[in-house]
């Protein structure tokens, strides 16, 4: 999979969630956080990955 770029600005998510985002190919800047102050949790990342995977077209 292609590398996901590290976002330029501030990201509010623990290091572990940020790594999982890279592992799943998720652009963490596009994930909306459910934690206090909008902090992104690991679950948010996984849910975002599932949601976007289901709308992506099947590879041909």
């Amino acid at each position, binding site marked *: 999979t292609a590398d996901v*770029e*590290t976002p330029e600005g501030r990201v*509010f998510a623990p*290091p572990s969630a940020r*790594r999982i985002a*890279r592992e799943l190919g998720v652009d963490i800047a596009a994930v909306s*956080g459910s934690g*206090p*102050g909008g*902090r992104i949790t690991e679950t948010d990342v996984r849910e975002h990955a599932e949601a976007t995977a289901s709308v992506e077209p099947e590879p041909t």
Partner: protein
Amino acid sequence: MVVGDISTGTDVLVIGAGPGGYVAAIRAAQHGLDTTLVERDAYGGVCLNYGCIPSKALITGAGLAHEAGNAEHMGIHADPAVDMEGLGGWKDDVVDQLTGGVEKLCKANGVNLVEGEASFADENTVRVAHGGDGQGSESIEFEHAIVATGSQPIELPGFDFTDEEVWTSRDALAADTIPDRLVVVGAGYIGMELATVFAKLGTDVTVVEMLDDALPMYESDVARVVRKRAKDLGIEFQFGEGASEWQESPDGGIQVVTETEDGVESTYAADKVLVAVGRRPVTEGVGLEAAGIETDDNGFIEVDDRMRTNRDHVFAIGDVAGEPMLAHVASHEGIVASEVIAGEPAAMDAQAVPAAVFTDPEVATVGMTEAEAEEEGFEPVVGEMPFRASGRALTADHTDGFVRIVADEETGLVLGGQIVGPEASELIAEVSLAVEMGATLEDVGSTIHTHPTLAEAVMEAAENAQGQAIHTLNR
């Protein structure tokens, strides 16, 4: 014995065994990669041999002697004498233990150690010239390379580093006598740390700085605390002056000549002059061109967030890869590079890069200042706790300074912190974790902190930002 030109191969070749290179090599080996680490001088690099470690050892020794000699108000009467050879010998022991440890750790993790100077021959080969007469050289082919060649002091026109009277930080750290008079050129962190060491050892220290404050890279209220204390220690500051040259003086010492922007000259008598005006990357002789690796205008190797150079299979980390030139940044980048080579989803995405200055008192910062937060488009809220209101600071007899926490007003998310005061370098760790985790002011403020500790000031600052501090008045 003449060793001929032998040729070997390796998965990961690391050039330079400083805190960037040795950490990268160990992590690569931990991932099962065949790893070779080439070092031309000393394991541990600048940091362990001529930087972080010897400087902190001298800071401890000078600090202890000075503190014990100035504790009459506590009923402690001592008149400590420091013998510089003894202090230097202990410092050397500390360095030897740590550099020996680095060598052992590399071997225990299966890193191949090669002594010599490495230079790229082409994009998949380095030649290593072994030191000494007729030691020959060898070629090593690699799949991936990590350049970790570090940095060296910037020379100042008029001050030749080969002159005995002109000190680099390395010379200052190796001093076996305490000079009577010292001029320090540059009030950055290296200059200020060493100025403090020698002032505490009894040297008359004059600091010459072109800008208008000590530690000019820090906020002025942070720098002020350090400058005030330095003055109390007898350090004289000459701001707005640049050092232009030095001369021998009839009295046997030297004179350092400075000039203001307007051309006004002054001279300061000294025995030595320490030049600490910055550091530049080490790239000469590394053969970057042979591998096709590009540098930026300041000579640093350009890298992306995976620590890759413009050649995908060659990485650069640490001081040679640019600011901030700090040991822990080098190590972290080394880990990222090796993880990326091992196929792990690593990246240099740290939200929090702490930095510390081991002056008296210490300074430590992480993340954004209030001004930086504004620039980034946040509406920052700030909380502070002065150490003079801290029970622990009072009982430790070190009450200068404060903790400041910067957060986003709307969400309460912690953006950064600035600490000047006792143990600032340790206290910043909690703020760093808060920034990395995306913690809020409430998270920090409602975590129970042990009493009496300096760390309570971090909690209090977070409470203060929320208008509910107990031990300071809220704004």
